[in-house]
């Protein structure tokens, strides 16, 4: 309980800092500019979990997909505030070093994330680099898992399956929150259009598992790299 309270306090402090920084920038508005865009790409997710004594378990990073809409308000040509609504897959694979043929399950987790970031850009009129930094909130939408499972009672045969993951409200965390940041390049190919490619990281600070055991803390986190490309309309 004490850990959870400290945890929440730290998160709230970070949120306040983000909002404060954003408000500090308002007096600098001059060449304000809106843009609205769409993007899509791939994700690469790393699942952090303490394997404890199950040393031959492997939690393998997995690819997924992402897609979303972006809106950005530029206070200056080098500074803006960006909001997104992204569908992000945070997948991983559970297998074993010794019995990989008998335990090899891919977990697909579909999240809806709402990142809010500060955008810093630099460069020329047409080609500019940028860096984003901020936070995101999100929700687990649904999941799917499948592959091969070791069936000790299966008459010597492994169990192959593919099914929706049934959310366990006692164990599974529906909400997500964390930090996000990214780097990218944009190319303004028209007065009102630009294209972007970007690498983004979503670093969750809320465990994907609830702390349902009072006397055993078990934290599991997703760290997801997104590689995306998109276009935006500049108003």
């Amino acid at each position, binding site marked *: 309980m004490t*850990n959870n309270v400290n*945890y929440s306090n*730290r*998160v709230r402090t*970070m949120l306040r*800092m*983000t909002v404060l*920084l954003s408000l500090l*920038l308002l007096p600098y508005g001059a060449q304000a500019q809106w843009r609205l865009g769409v993007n899509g790409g791939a994700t690469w997710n790393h699942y*952090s*979990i*303490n394997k*404890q*004594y*199950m040393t031959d*378990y492997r939690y393998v990073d997995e690819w997924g997909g992402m897609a979303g809409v972006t809106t950005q308000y530029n206070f200056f040509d*080098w*500074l803006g505030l960006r909001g997104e609504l992204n569908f992000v897959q945070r997948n991983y694979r*559970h297998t074993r070093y*010794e*019995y990989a043929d008998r335990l090899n399950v891919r977990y697909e987790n579909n999240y809806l994330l709402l990142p809010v970031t*500060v955008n*810093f850009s630099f460069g020329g009129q047409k080609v500019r680099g940028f*860096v984003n*930094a*901020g*936070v995101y909130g999100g929700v687990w939408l649904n999941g799917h*898992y499948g592959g091969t*499972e*070791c*069936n*000790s*009672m*299966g*008459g*010597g*045969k492994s*169990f192959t*399956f593919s*099914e929706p993951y049934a959310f*366990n409200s*006692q*164990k599974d965390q529906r909400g997500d929150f964390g*930090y996000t*940041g990214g780097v990218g390049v944009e190319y303004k190919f028209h007065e009102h259009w630009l294209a972007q490619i970007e690498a983004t990281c979503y*670093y969750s*600070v809320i*465990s994907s*598992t609830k702390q*349902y*055991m*009072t*006397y*055993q*803390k*078990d*934290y599991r*986190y997703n760290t997801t790299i997104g590689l995306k490309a998109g276009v935006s309309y500049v108003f």
Partner: protein
Amino acid sequence: MKTKIFLIAAAAVLFTGCRLESDDVLNYAHQDEMAFSKAEGSYAAKFDVVWNGLNANYALWDYEAEHGLNWDKVYEEFRPKFVALDSSKTTVTDKQLKALLDSVIAPLHDGHLSVQLKNHATGKYVSSGPGSLRLARERLDEYLTAARTELNLNYYAKNGLLKEYTVKSSYTIQTVAMEALKYVEAVVTRLEAIPESERTPAQNDTLALYSPIGRELSSALSLTLAGENQMAIEKYNIIAYKYQYLHIPYLEPIDPVINEYGLEVTYALFKDNIAYLKFDGFKLSAYLDDQFINQIFGGSSDATKALVTEVGDVWRAWFNAIQEHHKAGDLKGVIIDVRSNGGGLLYDSKFVLGALRQADESGGFHDCDARFKRGSGRFDYSPVMPQIMSVLDSAHVTVTAPVVVLCNCGSVSMAEHTSYGVKLFENGKLVGTRTFGGFSALSDEPSYSNNYAGYVGVENVTPVFCYIPQEVAYLLEENSKGEKIVEGYGIEPDIEVALDAETFNKVGTDNQLDRALQYIRTGN
């Protein structure tokens, strides 16, 4: 520019980690110094091993939570009581420790779970299991009736209702020791009949030796009456080795493996070709499967191996009767009696229900579903997957005549799988009373290789030992309670009949068997 640098730096600061570290969970699987050292001399530490070991390995936590058990509250309630034992100024007795352990374990449902603690004050071990506690609490009368009633078919045999009837036991302490005792007593009786003044010195020496041998053999045999077969065999073997120089007929050491794999099998064929099989444990594979026979009895004496064949022959008589009468078109039915059968080898399935049907697409038959632990968290489970029981490899008929399994509260584990399995037969019926409630299988792997579950510690070695099922087994359909997990509850019979022990003891008729016969003969 400065503003830009400030803002970029501020952004970097925001990325300081906010993640927390999980607690470390010890591996209690083996005799690990780090895991068990404190528990050698502390009751609170013993409780910590039990609580944490079950927390990580027990596969039924969601079921327990649905039935009102909060394992964290158990920690809060009972740990202080174990701490109090550590501070006790008087010696903690085994009875005290067992009573407290019983209180911790009693609310759990798994029928196989057993927990053993070493009382470091006395050097003795105390054990507890929720299945036995639940049985004693809820069904004691039924259990005692079943345990005290030695069912047999003697009435049916005496009254000419059976065409064939064979009982064979490999619990040789009762047979071989009895033969040795008979021989010794015959010698003593013969010599005592000779007046002392007329006995030769050799006869006097023989009498002086044989009289105490007879008393020792009687003492060893009396242990079997109390069900202490292992002690009886140990005592008998001491006698056999001590007097082997006398070359007394039948007085040869009994193979200790018999104690673990001893089996009694009964076969009968009723006049109308109902084939009956009863056995007191699922150890048939040890007598019927060549690989098992070599592994278990490979180093045994010729006498033991001959006994193994004789016990196996009883099953073969039952199996052959079914094949013969099915092919002749006059097999009336099959009865498999697993009353008071404590279960055993999963592999035995092929010699029981698996001998009456063919394999399906799974390569065996889909008996139930299973789920395993997949992590140290209480709710870390695998998906639910089919549990497949084996079918006899060699050619055999598919029995279409009615198949009835007899069960009672002493039918445990594989006896319960047999009880449930017959309900999945189109021509099957379960008769008797609700089984024990130990449906989820154990592992015989002491290591954690497959499911990271099964054992905490080593029995009679570490100060704490827990034998924990590696899975949860599910019925294929909900029972009358709307549940698929039957731990602590059991399999419900299709035809419920409580044993009339009084009539059996007076007359010899078995009303549960009679009900099974009625169903086979009338369809009702």
